């Protein structure tokens, strides 16, 4: 299984975290905004199809890659780009662990972190915790 990149956005649409691993194409200018618009649009389309009004986007499959998506109640959105054969259910479970454990321990409890516009994730423990989680799930080696 191959990981390409991860984006995390806050409720204001700011890209507060980016990390890449096995990516081969160049990072384009304005790409984070494109990802934000992309996932927002598909999430919106998904909600319009939903009978309950709460059902959201899980993943987008292309012949080259797969983008996994999750959103918290507080409006944090994560987009993870992987190779195409990574299970949607596996990554949804990883997202739950990421927000419950890594995010909570290294950011929610970080006195320097604020839930406000423009505040980036700068705590290096978050990136380390994230990679450790991915390694434990065999997404990274």
């Amino acid at each position, binding site marked *: 299984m191959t990981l390409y990149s991860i984006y995390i956005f806050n409720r204001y649409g700011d890209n507060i975290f980016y990390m890449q691993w096995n990516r081969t*194409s160049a990072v384009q200018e304005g790409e984070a905004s*494109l990802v934000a618009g992309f996932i927002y*649009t598909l999430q919106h389309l998904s909600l319009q199809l*939903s009978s309950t009004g709460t059902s959201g*986007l*899980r993943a987008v499959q292309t012949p080259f890659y797969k983008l996994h998506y999750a959103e918290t109640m507080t409006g944090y959105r994560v987009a993870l780009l992987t*190779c195409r054969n990574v299970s949607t259910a596996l990554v949804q479970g990883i997202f739950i662990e990421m927000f419950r454990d890594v995010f909570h321990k290294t950011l929610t409890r970080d006195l320097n972190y604020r839930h406000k516009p423009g505040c980036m994730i700068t705590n290096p423990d978050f990136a380390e915790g994230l990679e450790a989680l991915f390694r434990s799930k065999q997404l990274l080696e």
Partner: protein
Amino acid sequence: MTVHLLWIINQSGQLIAKSSFTAPENIGELGAKPDLQLTMSSILFSTYGMSQELTPNANPVDSAGMTLVECEEHNIHIYETPTLVKFVLVSDSRTRECNALFRELHSLYVEYVMKNPFHIVDEGGIGQPIRIAAFTGAVKRAVDRYHAAGVLTATRK
């Protein structure tokens, strides 16, 4: 194995055909407000282009757009022909792929639409909707056969 909705989007991003196969409430707001489908189909066309741009492991010019959007209640399946016409199927979330059905729908499109001398593909740059009763009927029958095959498969398991 249920297919709720078919869109056919031309190469300019215009919705040229839509067919519902189940009750409107199965597709939420898009069922309650059918006019919304014109807007949402062109938005889907734009996001298809975005998914090519975002490819992390190939040159965007070489990449291909999304083929499946997985949501909690639905899956959106997308099939692009070499002439850039897109077939979109909205199904329940348990339907993993629709490749055989797409190929059949593409064949019906060629037979009933492209071979129809009275069908105007494009008028002053505006794609024309498909108003061919035989095509609509054939699509319904193809999807009904697909549903029937699904029931048979489910029964056999």
